[in-house]
């Protein structure tokens, strides 16, 4: 038991007294509203007491940082050894322009890089593809060949800076480019560090950037996990992501449950397909969560995530290496919590969300810029967002002590509730035969659609408030300068792509693509072939077309 009996007895007596008083007072003056709940509509009580956590066991459920179940964090030293990585997601227009932004961010104190690609790159198309018309450089940087990539990482010390790349269906291709770029710069594969998002299951569930069907998509992910384990030991080959699940409108519990169940699927598949021991690769699995506006719900979600994962890894997969039990995660503040109306308020929202991520023990953080709801962030807006992290780290004292909210009746109780509810979902998906099968049934997609619609209705009815949208609506428009991506970039990028195509050795390109195709057909690991193809200046689309041909294409079933 968590508390001695005499304390619990006293608490029960005093709580009873308090309840009577509340009853009297609320009969006189009713509460402002009947039901109080989180942004995910999880009901919250007026008060939490020792009774809410009396069944916890300190050693089993809480313990200390660096010890199982890692509720309080992976690192025994907390943030004192080093802060979380300040990692701003950025990418815009051409490789040259993005490289310039990266150097500016590093100069301003950013400690890791994170790449946003444009939609053609994300979907495995080249800039000159008819389907890519109008999209070049809009949502991120356009990369067609290794030449673009070399420009992107120009002047970046690849053995010192870790780089995260938000890339999914063509993850093998962009990672191959990173490996090839390192090699050309004389940096060994064992020296480079970073992350590829490479989490296809959440694409089918939420973000909808897909190419091949779920099964071959998972196969490609297993290839990268195997290749990383053997040759690129400092690389996180998959960043199992809840961020997009949440942005698509899920609740916090759904984000937690679906993300962790995706993780289970990758672990199971890698063991099955590659014959690796769980402890060989599990320490390099990383996670990515959203930090939404509901402060305590987010903190509890992150704490629960660490504990559930540790239990899954130890008990379900029998992992023995404590590092396999660790859940390391990046966090991004919630884009969907920001408003186009009164955009300066977004600075405040982002600060609160970032603080929650820090109190939840994140290892890495992106803070959204105030203008991201309207366009790609301006330099000024990015700077405020980065400074927000620096203020939290170095002014507020939030990093002084580890997991400062532990022991709070409310925080521990909500953490427990979220773990229970997430585990119910995980079991349900297990019963469906796993996540691929649940996705084929449309289960996670429809659960999220229900939650998103429910929330929108609550906003429309005024039950949930978004300041500036459905309450405190201002008359005046506050105009902020918007970053616009020049339409001419598409033309320029197409020209430079064509120039690369003219100068490369066509025979080598065809040969390397054919070898890749053969590897795909025979179930070999595609990574070595992919690296060879990008070195021969094969384009992103040429390589992805091989995957499409061999594995088939996936189309959105359009569920709503």
């Amino acid at each position: 038991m968590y508390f001695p009996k005499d304390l619990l007895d006293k608490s029960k007596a005093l709580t009873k007294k308090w309840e009577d008083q509340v009853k009297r007072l609320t009969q006189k003056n009713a509460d402002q509203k009947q039901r109080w709940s989180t942004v995910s509509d999880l009901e919250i009580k007026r008060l939490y007491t020792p009774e809410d956590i009396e069944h916890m066991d300190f050693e089993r459920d809480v313990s200390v940082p660096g010890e199982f179940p890692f509720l309080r964090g992976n690192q025994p030293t907390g943030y004192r050894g080093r802060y979380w990585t300040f990692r701003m997601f950025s990418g815009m227009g051409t490789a040259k322009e993005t490289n310039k932004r990266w150097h500016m961010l590093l100069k301003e104190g950013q400690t890791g890089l994170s790449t946003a690609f444009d939609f053609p790159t994300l979907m495995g198309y080249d800039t000159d593809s008819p389907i890519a018309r109008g999209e070049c450089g809009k949502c991120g940087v356009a990369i067609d060949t290794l030449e673009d990539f070399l420009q992107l990482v120009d002047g970046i010390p690849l053995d010192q800076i870790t780089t995260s790349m938000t890339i999914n269906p063509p993850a093998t291709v962009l990672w191959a480019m990173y490996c090839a770029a390192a090699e050309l710069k004389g940096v060994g594969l064992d020296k480079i560090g970073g992350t590829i998002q490479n989490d296809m299951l959440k694409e089918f569930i939420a973000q909808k950037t897909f190419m091949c069907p779920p099964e071959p998509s998972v196969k490609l992910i297993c290839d990268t996990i195997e290749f990383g384990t053997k040759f690129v030991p400092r690389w996180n080959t998959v960043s199992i992501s809840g961020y997009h699940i949440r942005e698509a409108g899920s609740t916090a519990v759904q984000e937690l449950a679906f993300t962790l169940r995706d993780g289970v699927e990758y672990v199971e598949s890698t063991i099955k397909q590659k014959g690796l021991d769980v402890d060989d690769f599990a320490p390099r699995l990383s996670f990515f969560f959203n930090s939404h506006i509901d402060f305590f719900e987010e903190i509890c979600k992150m704490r629960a995530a660490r504990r559930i994962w540790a239990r899954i890894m130890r008990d379900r997969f029998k992992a023995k290496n404590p590092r396999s039990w660790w859940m390391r995660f990046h966090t991004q503040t919630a884009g969907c919590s920001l408003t186009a109306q009164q955009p300066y308020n977004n600075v405040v929202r982002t600060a609160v969300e970032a603080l929650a991520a820090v109190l939840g023990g994140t290892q890495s953080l992106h803070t959204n810029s105030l203008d991201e709801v309207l366009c790609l962030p301006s330099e000024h807006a990015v700077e405020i967002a980065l400074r927000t992290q620096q203020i939290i780290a170095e002014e507020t004292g939030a990093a002084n002590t580890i997991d400062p909210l532990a022991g709070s009746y409310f925080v521990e109780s909500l953490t427990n509730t979220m773990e229970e509810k997430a585990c119910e979902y995980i079991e349900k998906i297990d019963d469906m035969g796993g996540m691929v099968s649940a996705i084929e049934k449309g289960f996670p997609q429809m659960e999220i659609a229900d939650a998103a619609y429910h929330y929108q209705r609550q906003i429309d009815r005024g039950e949930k408030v978004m300041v500036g949208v459905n309450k405190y609506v201002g008359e005046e428009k506050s105009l902020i300068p918007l970053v616009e991506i020049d339409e001419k970039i598409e033309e320029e990028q197409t020209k430079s792509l064509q120039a690369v195509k003219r100068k490369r050795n066509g025979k080598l390109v065809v040969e390397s693509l054919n070898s890749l195709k053969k590897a795909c057909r025979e179930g070999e690991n595609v990574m070595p072939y992919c690296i060879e193809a990008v070195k021969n200046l094969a384009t992103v689309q040429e390589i992805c077309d091989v995957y499409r041909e061999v594995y088939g294409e996936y189309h959105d079933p359009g569920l709503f």
Partner: protein
Amino acid sequence: MERKIRIMVAKPGLDGHDRGARILARCFRDAGFEVIYTGCHQTPEQIASAAIQEDVDLVGLSCLSGAHKYLFPKVVELLKEQGAEDIAVIGGGIIPEQDFDLLYKAGVKEVFTPGRSLESIVDWIRENISVQ
């Protein structure tokens, strides 16, 4: 009995941000319209031909990638080319106000941006769209 207004909610381009489109599709269905949802990653050509085939009264385009300036006018143009200018086109997503004029001039009837209530969009449709 008059038939219901038929609406096609469509996601042109490579953008996968479909939260808004799917919420609207559901909302239109709940409001009593007939709804077809295309799913993500449709080309303007696919959208125009599906709209004609399905004989819809309204196409609602959603784009959050910034490619609306090419994609929305293209859908209107293709409908016109195929003699289906009676199908109205509206759009929404992350659309900067400075682009509204360009879209209106291209024939997009209305642009809805974040913060619009579902009800107000349904009301707009009831007022402006009639069964053809």
